[in-house]
């Protein structure tokens, strides 16, 4: 292992120095990566490996994290990292060709080749692995991707764990080969072999020593959450990651509301049909955003006053109640006025 110093050459003093302190969580999609491998992982699934164009380290990440992948045509999609965080020089993602996709996954399958350059945003983590003596992992199809590094972590932590991996058929289920060494800890539930699975039976009654992590299609997650509620699992003990935004129903108010930009003192009125994100950006605030559907977490802003109408798929009920932050790409306001730290 060779440690190479990767510091940039000594910069000349900037005429107009940047004073913006950036944290790793605020990294924009300004990093380039090169595709170093494209491998078939299952029917309709490719595993893509990315590296820094100059062979440097990629930003650190934790299990459950995702990146924004920006293709040459500007399409941006979020993918969970499913590789080895101890290898700082490679990211791996699994991409399912989604017939209902808006073009991103099809473009990746049809056109992305080794040597191509993409842009990256993140990593961000809205699906963190928290400590537990025991874990139950529930994967639906390509939802297995964020769970693979979690499984490795559970092993390292000496936790007891079990993975239920649901899919249509084994040929469509990626990374099964990597799960073989875990033997009895993994239950593969291919629908064409065993029929539909009873999610309530899989996660079972609430246990203080167990945390449940589920990732997959909407129907699977709704099933897991319904089973968890029926079995009185405490909030925070069952955690899900969505590919797509959860249904939110109608906004809390149909009338316009004011948003105060605390840093500039400006006030903008947000009309129905306009997002808070668009309104504050039009007022000159620099808010980074990505998915624009309340799933990726990029545009998080601090709420200083007022009651947001949370419409994202990220915050837990407790976090929603705290009202300290919101995702302005989808969330709106219950109160006449919101004060945001932008």
């Amino acid at each position, binding site marked *: 292992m060779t440690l190479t110093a990767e510091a940039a050459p000594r910069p000349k003093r900037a005429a107009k120095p940047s004073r913006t302190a950036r944290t790793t969580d605020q990294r924009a999609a300004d990093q380039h990566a090169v595709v170093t491998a494209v491998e078939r992982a299952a029917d309709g699934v490719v595993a893509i490996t990315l590296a820094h164009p100059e062979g440097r380290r990629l930003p650190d990440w934790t*299990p459950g994290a995702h990146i924004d992948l920006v293709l040459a045509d500007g399409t941006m999609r979020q993918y969970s990292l499913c590789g080895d965080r101890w290898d700082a020089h490679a990211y791996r993602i699994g991409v399912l060709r989604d017939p209902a996709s808006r073009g991103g996954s099809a473009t990746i399958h049809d056109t992305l080749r080794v040597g191509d350059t993409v842009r990256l945003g993140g990593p961000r983590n809205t699906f963190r692995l928290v400590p537990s003596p025991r874990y139950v992992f529930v994967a639906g199809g390509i939802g297995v991707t964020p769970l693979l590094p979690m499984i490795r972590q559970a092993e390292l932590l000496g936790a007891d764990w079990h993975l239920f991996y649901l899919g249509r058929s084994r040929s469509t289920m990626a990374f099964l080969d990597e799960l073989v060494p875990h033997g009895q800890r993994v239950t593969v539930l291919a629908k064409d072999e065993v029929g539909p699975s009873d999610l309530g039976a899989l996660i079972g009654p609430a246990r203080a020593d167990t945390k449940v992590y589920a990732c997959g299609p909407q129907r699977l997650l709704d099933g897991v959450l319904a089973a968890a509620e029926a079995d009185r699992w405490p909030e925070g003990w069952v955690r899900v990651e969505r590919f797509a935004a959860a249904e939110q129903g109608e906004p809390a108010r149909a009338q316009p509301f004011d948003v105060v930009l605390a840093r500039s003192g400006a006030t903008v009125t947000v009309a129905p049909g306009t997002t808070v994100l668009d309104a504050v950006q039009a007022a000159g605030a620099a808010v980074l955003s990505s998915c624009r559907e309340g799933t990726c977490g990029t545009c998080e802003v601090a709420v200083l006053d007022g009651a947001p109408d949370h419409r994202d798929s990220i915050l837990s009920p407790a976090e929603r109640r705290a009202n300290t932050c919101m995702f302005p790409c989808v969330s709106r306001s219950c109160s006449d006025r919101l004060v945001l730290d932008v």
Partner: protein
Amino acid sequence: MPTAASTLPIIDADPFGPRVLADPLPFQHELREAGPVVVLAKYGVYAMGRHAEVQAALTDWQSFESGAGVGLANFRTEAPWRPPSLLLEADPPHHDAPRAVLTTILGPRQLARLREAWEADAAELVDTLLARASGGALEFDAVPDLAGAYPLRVFPDAVGIGPDGRENLLPYGDMAFNAFGPRNALVERDAERVGALSGWVASQCAREALSESGFGAQIWEAADRGDITHEQAPLIVRSLLTAGVDTTVNGIAAFLHAVATHPRAWERLRRQPALIRGSFDEAVRLESPVQSFFRTATRDVEIGGTVIPAGSKAVLFLGAANRDPRRWEDPDVFDVDRDPSGHVGYGFGLHQCVGQHVARAEATAVMGALARRVEAIELAATPRRHLNNTLRSWASLPLRFTVA
């Protein structure tokens, strides 16, 4: 114990001896010029002082672990003096959950809610001090009266500890930061009070000892949500109390010393208060309140033609890296127009100071309040250093303030 290759530079100076601690700059120079990696003869450990290698080693947590301790003592072979920190002295995967919880609690989102109150506290403290001025000027020792007074006024309340025993915070931090060094006279001096100070700090970390809404209570609430365990919560509170006071006191003192010795900088900060926040980082770069941390190689790591063997300790001199002329133009100058990004004063990589937003918020509040009321800040007498194995600290910083 490294077996130095014949080409590996050896430095005899003791970086933890009183001479170097009182003035580390000549040692830092010797270290940087000797090579990218050297051996410290007195301790038989590797050392680095150039910015590129220090920053790279801090970033590469896979090759340089923290779990064997970030001081000279190797936790794999020696018992730590206290239960190890779940943050500073831990590696992934154990490090992840405590870090994520503190990153949220001490993040800009939470601090935005404290900013107004902290600015009011700073203004009140400055007004009270300046009320003693006569003839438009006054002198006082800025270490106890300002750099120490302000963090002790806002931070323990923000954590939510009780009013009694707060005088133990600075001695506890001083002791903990000494303990990263060798068992020299500075550590021996603390031997008698280790038990009492540690006991007091431990008692502050219990749920019932903390106010309902502070950082401490939020750590316990994170345990209720399952983000960390209830066993981890008190140790994470302890991290705040250990690392959150002395460091900030020395950072603010460093800022005050820098403006007192660079009068044009103060004029500029008064005219353009928006520069204060970034200038605090420039002061942290220049002074490096935390001077050094150790790491332990997890495998044979090659750096600049030298192999640091698996299991070896290496000490990274943050202060030396922050004044490395290979990285910084005029490194010994406090320049409010410099972009100090990339300094390693808060460390770097996944262990980078989780409280840095708190430190910036405190320093910005204090210096902002001063900028509104004080026209000039000068040294009133020769400052005196307080020696610590890890911290670059002041015993006394007598300043003269001219009221605007």
